[in-house]
Each structure stands twice: as C-alpha cells, then as structure tokens.
C-alpha cells in the first residue's frame, strides 16, 4: 500500500556539551497517548504478532478477556508513540565509530533510518564569542526518519540517502555559518518558553508549533516530511544554500499505478529495455515541469523537455536536441526515475492499445472525475470500454464520425491522457521461429490454416526437394549435374545425422524416385535434372541460414518463399529477431523496413513462424 512507504516521523537529534536531545520531531505526538502507551509497554506482556493460521485455543480466548492487551505498537494513527524524547535521544546519538555511516535500527514495528555525523572536528571560533565556554557546543547530529518495519530494502536505502543528504547539508551549513547552532538555540528557547516547570514533556504540541514558527530548519524538515507524504519528492535549498533533491521512485510511480506495490527493480528492468525507437510522454504539463526543475539544471534537459513530443522517437529527439543518443538515454532514465516521463512507443495510427489489467474500472473513481474535468462531455468508462478489445487510436471505419480534425485531435488527447494514467497498454506483435517437426508435413493437415494446403498438396515432393538440397550440399561442388543414384548413400547419412524427424530414409528414397516428376524443382527445370542454378540457390540458402540448426534450416527451405533469393535473404537477415523478444516495430526500425514489406515476408514464411501479441516490457511497468 502506498501509505506504508510514508515516513512515520522525521527527527532531528543532536548531542552536545549539555547532553543528547531531540531538537525537533514532526509530526508532533499527542501527549496523553504517550503516557498510556508507556504504561502499556511496561505492564502488558506483549503478545506475539497474531499468526493468521494459528489455532485459537479456548483457554486463550478466556485469557484474552481477562487482560485485554493487544500487541502494543509504536505507531498509532500514523504517529510515532511510545518513545519519550529522552529515550529517542539516547539511542539515536551513537558512538563516534558509527558516525559517517548509514544508520538503521529496527525496534519491533518501527525502523529508524538516519545518518549520524560527528561535528566535533569543526573548528569553533573561540575568539569571536567571549562566552564560548558557556556556549552549548553541538558535537554530533543525526537526521532520522522513522519508518514502518519490513519495508523493502530498496526503500530503506532511498531514505538512508535522503537522511545522508540532509545531515551532510546541515553539517556543511554548520561549518559555513553555524546554522545548526543558531537553529538549535531558537528551538531550545522555544522549549524553555513553553515548558512549565514540574511537568517537562507535557506540552510537546505547542512547543513544536512554536519551533516550526520560529526556526527555519524546522520548517525545512517539515517541508521534507510533507513532500514525502504528498508525492515522494523533495526539492529545496537548505538554508537557501545547499540543494537537497530526492525522490522516492516507489511512491512517485505509485501515484499512477494504483494498488500494486512497485519495486525499484522493476523500474530498472523497464529502463534496461530502453531503445532508440521509444518516445517519452511527459506525465505533467511542460510548464509545471520547468517550475519544478532546479535553477541550475542541465540545459540539455530543458531542451529535451521543450522538444519532446509523443510522436518523436528518441533518435529524432537526439538529432533535434543535438545530443548524443547515450546522453538522451541518461536524461530519459533520469526523468523516468523521477516520474516526470514515461516510456511509450511513439504515437501512430498503426499502434494497437488495450485496457491495462490494472486500470481502475470503478465508475466513480477519482480518475474518472479528473477525466471529466479534462474532457467535458466524455465519459471515462465509455473510453475504457472502447479499448476492451485491441484497438487503434481511432477506429478506421469510424472516421466518418470524426467530422472535423479538431475531433480527431481530441481523440488523440484522450489516448494520451489514458496513457499518462497508465490505463492503456500498447500491444506489439512478436515473432518466434518454431518449425514443425517434419513428420507433421507428411501427415494429414494438422493446422487449420487454409493457405498451408499448397505445401500439403505436394507433401512428398517437399521431401524430395529437401533431400536433394541436402545432397547437393554434401556433394563435391565441382560436379555439375546431380546423379541421384550416387547420392543416395550420402543422403541417408545426411538424413540420419541432420534430421531429428526420424523419417525412414528408404521410404523417402523411393519417394524420390517415384514422385520426382511432381517436384517443385520441375517448375524451374522441365527436363527434371537439377541445374547449376538450382544448386546455386541451395548453396545460397545454406550460407544465408548458416547460423541456424540444421533442423530449422531444413524447415525453412521447405517454405515456397525460400526459393526467392530476395525473400530468403531478408528472412535470413531478420532471423535473429525471431526469438519472441523483438516486436515488428523494432525490426522495422533497425532494418529500415516498411510495415507492409515485413508483414508480407512474415506471411510468406508463416509455416515456420508463430506470431504472438503482448505488451512491450519497456512501456508497461507492471
């Protein structure tokens, strides 16, 4: 759940010449709860976390009635409870050996993540302050995030990074202008002002309010916490000097993908599929993005954002922005990580989209209300229903409905909006080279494909072609004409070696002899002998398909289209793509083909190819 990734609290702890203190904590706790929960901790025997599979024993139930003591939790209504400030200060300020290293302690159901730093080495300017000996010197500082326990490791690492950024920045500012010392004074003064003698911890809420009011550091920490809570992003200048920028990618992306918990790995995996034919889709308006970017951000990034459009692929963007493609990659990865952009395949009419399985179809969802605001008059449910089945951006036969280009534009915008909110997935066609085993061809029709029948009608001749093909390859190239009877023995050995089909050779030999007249080779050579031409073609086939297993090779040459050298050449060139990992668009991009060319080729070799439609792992995060 998204909620679980949020920090429970942020703490600022210091250790100084006057002992360890929690200078600031946000959000503030409710005091009356503190006391009751502490009592609970000490009095009640904690029951172990309830196992949902545990057998409930009758005696236990009776016991439960007597002493109602649910396992005390340190988190109550999302607020850290059960720790007094003194306790916190005691264990969050660590020995000097642990300073300058990420710090993490888990206590029951809360985890403290911080980055303690020692400030004792800082030179204190004693001359400027005559009463320095009375000065409260801060020796160590730690910014700690309180998290729920059992968060994924990558989330903890992210928080650790943020804590480190903050602590290092505070330490730097302390060195530069004694920022922390000044702020600490303000905070302590606020504590003194509000505290009533006798009841020390009692009115934390008003103290903390006063601190936030007076201290800029406290305001900044509150800003951090609020940023983390709202969208997982933190960008500001600490003391208007040191830039802090951080983003919790788990949370940033979760704004879009409801329900499912996203891991950092899946973002990285997604980015590893980044290719030059992809495009980026900004998740928020350009102007909003510029406002968010820091002043000194790379000009390349602003140029990229200005020039990007959902129809431009990264290669085009690289040319237009005059950046190298690797630089574009880096910028894109950066933007995707921060949730400013998402990867898509450039919008075009041939794209096929389908409703994402994670889309929220609830009629009254927040998303549909937002949709209504963006596109008055349209209903999200109807648009979603349109993409129940794989559809293009707009139905071709519905073109009449879109009377004006303005309407078409609007439909485009709807699709873009739905892509931005991850309601749509794009489907791509992938190709696999899976030949049938050879006996399939000699047996009766196994497929219901009507067009395969051409092969079937000349079943046995297929055998002939193949065997003569193989025999030519085995033969001494100097021989000009093929003597069938002499090559029979070769043929047998070739067959047993290279084919796994287990076809009986003797049978095929007789077929050779008897069916020879029907061989498709005859179509080329009326005299029935195999000419140099034919052999040259076989050699070509062999060299082109050299990389493949003999079994595959044999199956490919069985396709009628393999007799056309051009087709075969193209097929051989595309063969590396036929492993189910490259979609048609990728082949078109890398091999500079048109869709019709590619589709025609795939159709010609459909006996050995299997097409499969699913989404591209790069463009679908889930």
């Amino acid at each position: 759940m998204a909620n679980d990734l949020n920090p429970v609290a942020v703490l600022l702890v210091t250790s100084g010449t006057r002992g360890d203190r929690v200078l600031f904590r946000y959000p503030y706790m409710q005091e009356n709860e503190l006391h009751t929960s502490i009592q609970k901790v000490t009095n009640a025997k904690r029951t172990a976390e309830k196992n949902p599979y545990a057998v409930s024993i009758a005696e236990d139930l009776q016991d439960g009635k007597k002493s109602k003591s649910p396992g005390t939790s340190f988190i109550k209504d999302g607020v850290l409870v059960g720790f007094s400030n003194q306790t916190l200060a005691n264990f969050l300020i660590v020995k000097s050996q642990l300073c300058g290293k990420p710090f993490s302690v888990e206590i029951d159901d809360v985890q403290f993540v911080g980055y303690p730093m020692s400030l004792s080495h800082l030179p204190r300017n004693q001359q400027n302050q005559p009463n320095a000996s009375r000065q409260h010197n801060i020796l160590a500082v730690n910014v700690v995030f309180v998290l729920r326990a059992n968060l994924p490791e990558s989330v903890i690492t992210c928080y650790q990074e943020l804590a480190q950024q903050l602590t290092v920045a505070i330490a730097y500012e302390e060195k530069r202008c004694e920022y922390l010392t000044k702020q600490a004074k303000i905070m302590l003064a606020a504590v003194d002002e509000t505290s009533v003698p006798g009841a020390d911890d009692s009115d934390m809420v008003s103290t903390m309010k006063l601190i936030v009011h007076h201290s800029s550091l406290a305001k900044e920490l509150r800003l951090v916490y609020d940023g983390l809570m709202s969208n997982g992003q933190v960008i500001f200048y600490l003391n208007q000097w040191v830039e802090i920028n951080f983003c919790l990618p788990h949370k940033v992306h979760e704004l879009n993908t409801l329900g499912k918990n996203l891991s950092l790995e899946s973002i990285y995996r997604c980015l590893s599929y980044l290719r030059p034919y992809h495009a980026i889709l900004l998740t928020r308006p350009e102007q909003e993005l510029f406002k968010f970017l820091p002043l000194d951000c790379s000009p390349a990034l602003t140029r990229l954002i200005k020039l990007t459009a959902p129809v431009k692929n990264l290669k085009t963007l690289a040319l237009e922005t005059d950046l190298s493609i690797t630089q574009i990659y880096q910028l894109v990865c950066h933007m995707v990580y921060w949730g400013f952009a998402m990867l898509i395949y450039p919008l075009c009419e041939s794209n096929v989209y389908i409703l994402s399985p994670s889309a929220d179809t609830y009629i009254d969802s927040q998303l549909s209300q937002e949709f209504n605001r963006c596109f008055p008059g349209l209903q999200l449910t109807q648009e979603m229903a349109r993409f129940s089945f794989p559809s293009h951006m707009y139905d071709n036969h519905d073109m009449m409905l879109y009377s004006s280009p303005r309407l078409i534009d609007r439909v485009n915008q709807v699709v873009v909006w739905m892509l931005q909110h991850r309601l749509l997935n794009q489907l791509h066609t992938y190709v696999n080279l899976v030949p049938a085993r050879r006996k399939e061809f000699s047996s009766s029709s196994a497929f219901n494909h009507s067009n395969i029948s051409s092969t079937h009608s000349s079943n046995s001749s297929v055998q002939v072609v193949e065997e003569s093909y193989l025999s030519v390859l085995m033969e001494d190239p100097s021989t000009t004409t093929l003597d069938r009877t002499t090559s029979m023995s070769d043929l047998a050995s070739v067959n047993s070696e290279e084919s796994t089909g287990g076809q009986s050779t003797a049978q095929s030999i007789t077929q050779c002899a008897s069916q020879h007249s029907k061989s498709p080779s005859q179509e080329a050579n009326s005299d029935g002998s195999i000419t140099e031409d034919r052999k040259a073609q076989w050699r070509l086939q062999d060299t082109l398909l050299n990389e493949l297993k003999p079994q595959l090779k044999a199956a490919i040459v069985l396709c009628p289209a393999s007799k056309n050298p051009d087709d075969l050449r193209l097929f051989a060139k595309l063969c590396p793509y036929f492993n189910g990992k490259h979609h048609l668009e990728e082949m078109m991009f890398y091999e500079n083909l048109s869709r019709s060319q590619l589709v025609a080729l795939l159709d010609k070799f459909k006996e050995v190819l299997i097409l499969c439609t699913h989404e591209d792992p790069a463009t679908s995060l889930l």
Partner: protein
Amino acid sequence: MIKCIFLSEFHHTQGPIISHQIPKDYVSKEIFDAIHNFIITKSELQNRLITVSSFGHKYVGCPIYIENAKYKRNAFIFNVCFTFDEKTNTSPYGPVVKKLANYLTQLETELEFLSASENSERVPQFLKRVLNGLNHEGCCSINMAPSCTVHLKLATSIHEPIAVEDHDVPCLIVLKDAITKCQWDLTTQQILHYVDGLSHVKKIAADADVELNLVKANLQNLLYYKFIKMVPIFQYSNVYTVTRNINKLIEDTHLQKECIKFVAKSDRSPPEFRDVYLMYCAFTPGTTVKTLCTRQVNPHTLKIDERKLVQFGLMKGLLRRMQKYPMALPGQPVTARVQPLLSLLNGKHNFDQISCETGISHHELDDKIEADDSIVVCWK
C-alpha cells in the same frame, strides 16, 4: 544463515559485556562497544525486538530485564543476539529470537541457568546447539530441564491467507501421491479427493458434502503449503490472453516438456510443441475459447486438451484471464430487467462475481446487459 550467537549481559561492575559467544571472538570488543546501547538498552526498550545494522552485519536481539533482589543490582539484564550478514532478510528470525529470550527468562527464573557461575560450560553448549540446529535443520528441540524443552523453528514468512472465492478452481501442483502421504485431517482428505483441477470450490463443497467455509479454510491451508494453486473456472465463453511470460515456454525446455505432457489428450501420443505454442499464441483479447477452438485451431486433431492447456497456462502465468466488468453509465436510465443488478454494475464487480452473487448464469447476464444501451462492458 546465522553467523554467530552471543549472550550479552550487564555485569555489575564491568557494565555491558559479551559473556558467551559462539563461534568465539566473532564480534569484537570494539564493535560491541559501539553498539552495546542497542543490546543492553535502557529499561524502556526491554522485551522489544531490536535489529541493528552496522559494520556489515545485522544484530537481532531482545533485551530482557529480570527484577529480583537477589541480583547485585536488583535486576539481571541479558540479551541473546543473533548475528547475520548485512544482506540477510532477518524477518523470519525475529520470532525465534523472541521465543529464545522467553525460554531463557524461564530458565533463569527457575534454575538460574544464566547467572549461576557453575553453568558457564552449559550455556555455550546450549547456544552452539541452537546455532547448529537453526542453521542446518531450521529447527531444534533441546531438553534443558525436566519441565522445559526449548523448541525453536524458523517459520516461513506468514502472509495473509489468500482469499478463496466460490468460483475458483483449485489445481494440484504436486503429485497426488505426495499429498496423500501426508497425514491430513479428515475433511482435507475428503476434499482432496474432489480436487481435480476442473471443479470449482462450490462444487467441491457440494460433492464432498462439506460446509463451504470449511472447504475454503482447508484450501487456504493447502495453498499455504503450496500444494495447490487457484485458477479461475474454465468456461468456453472465457477470454484469455497470452502474457509476456510466454517466452519462457520457448526458452525453458523443461517447461516445454512439462507442458507437452500436461496438455496431451492421451499419454501415448503427445502433441507437437509448435501446435501447443501456436495455440497459446492464438489466445488474444476478444477471442473466447469457443471461437478459438471452432474457428482457429482444432485442439482435437492437434491432440491437445484445451482445458488442460488453459489450466497449465494459468498456473505458469503464460495466460491471463480477461474479466468482464459491466458498468452502468451514470445518469442514464436502465431497463427494468437490470434494475435489481444495478448496485453491482459499478465497475468493481466482474461477471463471475455477479453470477456467483445473484445466481444468474453468464449467458443470461450477457443477454440482459447487451439489451441495455446504458451499460458498457470493459474487459481487462
């Protein structure tokens, strides 16, 4: 893997010390000094599970205070800590550490096991047995006293039981013999008999003559032990779509063999791999199993059992069921026929759920919804 177990206590003169350590000198004095305030803590944190990560290790412990006037400082403070590598997921060990701390509390209060000086030999022996037992077998049972045997076991992570719906179909994912060997309770035995990968939960309950909720509880138990997997009920009107995982079928030859064996109509003549693959790829959004089998491929001539093909695909994640969500457009009048269903037509309920809840068949529901223009259907 537990790297080390050490017993730390608060010595009345030396303060926090490591009194016993298995293996010896794994945690150095310097490291202990740096982190001892998390191991021998202030009394507010007693009886809490504390995990510290530092120096490339994780230390999991639970500080215990036993208050008694007989001790030098009126209390005996100790903590048994497990040490792990930084990368280890320590969550399964938490309950074990806690339980061990409770056992030691009992042993200390009853027998002075930890504090008595004559036991200085027995404690390391005990810790060694715990370490070896947990590392090698995942459990240990050590008899410490006539009335106290220390039973410790590493439990696999406990998650919320997966909800079992009336219309789900349980499928065995291990051999039936392997399951029946285990000693199950009578109800489970009775249910197992009817788990054939085809009948849904409600049908199993009726066939086995067992109360529905009992069946569900039993199936949840079997799910927990990973003996079964739940798949949506098979219907020829269902729509499935192939997922990205289909590539696994090409790359993984073991899976291929398993698949061919599973989907074969008869054991003697297994289908061609190409045909099986082709059939999987033919599952596209919008194509029901019925159209697929009648128009595109003929599973019968391919020697494929389409039910089993779908079942295998769902179990291995090669296929995904597409559910149908009817939604009444807001602000539009609906016909009287669907009026009683209106509350279910909000886009949160799919056809299966509506059918199960109202007892209306898919077909009937389809008719009703198709006749109404104000209802749109989303597949996802």
